[in-house]
């Protein structure tokens, strides 16, 4: 971004990663984002199953638009308000849980191939509450030849675009998992439409509700029409159905607040009690995706339990991996040692694994925090196994689509004697 002081600045769009930090930090509040608000309002008028994919960070900020302080938790009330407005609720936190199942499995695969030299690995994902659930996973590791260590997270589209633009050599290190939003879209249009809601997939309209401006760009990436491709391949929709997107529209937290206002709905007037159903279920690991270090902690909860076979009660501190939390530090690193369960000890011939992890909390001006981490990986001197990257300092809860906080963003206003 450049320009003379006092003269209109310009953004070099080929270089921009759409993170929206300029928007929430612009001293004049002059930058605006495009909006799908009208499209979504029209789809809500009938004929469509309109699905709101609600991101973790929305629930700790949307109350600010209705006069409450930052951090006011809005979950059941937000769900109720969305349903009142005509949406079906698909928790992006559920999609975050999907992400962990896939990305955690990928991490185990990469470590098994590169560190333990295995050709295949078999393990069980188990949970014993309320009933016993076991899921056998078998991975042929040959394909992991092209998936080197360390593994980087992929849920932040601004980070992915940054890597594609500036460090393409790093791409094989980035998890092949789509971001939660992009997992939610195609799941809603396949499994959701066919097995859960029993509606035709081409009549499902998916709306990401995101703290983020990069998510708008992400949803428009041409390859993200995987539900349409899959449904055609399986003969589940007629050949004549034209291509549709996995995620049709994205509203920022600010946009959703505006939609509520136009419909005369105040989410804070609903009750904060509910019985979740279907895609409204999510775990603690899913919800902390909204904060820096959250994806890492959720992945550690998964990997630790799967590899060690431990399943303490949900409230136990053993599930807390406080040392990987980003809080307001620009970069955090930690080592997590996991004792292996009996079957895995036999299969691998070792007793424990140690995972070295790093959390990049905001890529920094000009990539100042992320660059050294990438350079190390490219030089072959990185000691990490897994690296989380969030473009926004603090994580998505400080994303470019969140309510603009007068206390810390548009800073010209508080300095002026009179409002502009």
């Amino acid at each position, binding site marked *: 971004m450049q320009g003379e002081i006092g*003269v209109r600045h310009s953004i070099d769009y080929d270089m921009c990663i759409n993170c929206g930090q300029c928007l929430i930090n612009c001293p004049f509040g002059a930058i605006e984002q495009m909006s799908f608000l009208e499209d979504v309002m029209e789809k809500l008028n009938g004929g469509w199953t309109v699905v709101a994919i609600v991101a*973790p*960070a929305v*629930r*700790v*900020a949307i109350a600010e638009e209705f006069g409450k*302080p930052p*951090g006011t*938790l809005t979950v059941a009330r937000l769900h109720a308000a969305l349903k009142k407005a005509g949406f079906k609720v698909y928790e992006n936190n*559920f999609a975050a849980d*999907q992400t*962990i*199942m*896939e990305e*955690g499995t990928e991490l185990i695969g990469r470590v098994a191939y590169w560190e333990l030299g295995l050709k295949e690995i078999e393990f069980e994902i*188990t949970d014993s*509450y309320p009933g016993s*659930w076991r*899921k*056998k*996973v078998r991975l042929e590791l040959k394909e992991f030849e092209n998936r080197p260590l360390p593994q980087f997270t992929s849920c932040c589209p601004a980070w992915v*675009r940054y890597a*594609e633009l500036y460090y393409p050599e790093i*791409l094989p290190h980035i998890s*092949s*998992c*789509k971001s939660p939003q992009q997992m939610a879209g195609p*799941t809603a249009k*396949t*499994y959701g439409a066919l*097995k859960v809601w029993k509606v035709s997939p081409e009549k499902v309209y998916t709306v990401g509700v995101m703290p983020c401006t990069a998510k708008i760009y992400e949803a428009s990436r041409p*390859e*993200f029409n*995987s539900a349409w491709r899959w449904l055609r391949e399986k003969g589940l929709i007629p050949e004549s159905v034209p291509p549709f997107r996995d995620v049709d529209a994205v509203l920022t937290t600010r946009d959703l607040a505006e939609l509520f206002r136009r419909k005369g709905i105040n989410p804070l007037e609903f009750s904060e009690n509910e019985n979740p159903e279907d*895609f409204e*279920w999510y*775990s*603690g*690991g899913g*919800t*902390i995706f909204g*904060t820096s270090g*959250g994806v890492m902690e959720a992945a550690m909860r*998964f990997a630790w339990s*799967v590899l060690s076979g431990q399943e303490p*009660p*949900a*409230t*136990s501190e053993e*599930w807390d991996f406080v040392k990987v939390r980003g*809080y*307001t530090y620009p970069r955090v690193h930690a080592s997590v040692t996991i004792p292996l369960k009996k079957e895995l000890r036999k299969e691998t011939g070792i007793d424990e694994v140690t995972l070295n992890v790093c959390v990049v909390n905001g890529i920094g001006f000009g990539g100042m925090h992320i660059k050294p981490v990438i350079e190390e990986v490219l030089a072959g001197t990185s000691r990490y196994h897994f690296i989380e990257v969030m473009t926004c*300092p*603090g994580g998505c*809860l*400080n994303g470019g689509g969140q309510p603009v*906080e007068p*206390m*810390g*963003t548009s800073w010209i206003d508080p300095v002026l004697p009179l409002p502009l």
Partner: protein
Amino acid sequence: MRWFIEKPASLRITRRGLLKVFGVTVAALAVGAYKVTDLFVHRNRYIKMRQSGQYKDDERVRKTYSLAASQQNPMIKRFYDEFAGQPFGEVSESLLHTKYFRRTG
């Protein structure tokens, strides 16, 4: 269309003027630096408030529904049992994974 082209400062400003500009700049920088640290303190404050909300939600779902980790989510169990099979299975590869593209010239 009219373009704004800034003249080099030396053509427009006298020596006395320059001193004035210098003084004002220093003043502005001093106030600015103060304001900017202030800004970061403020920013960190609302980030921390939102973060504590996020961890409160973690605590809530662990206490109310006994769900600490992703594999415990009842809908996750249904999703893999009724539909996707296993992580990195065929359905996952088609719907949940992707590829990246080099975008440099």
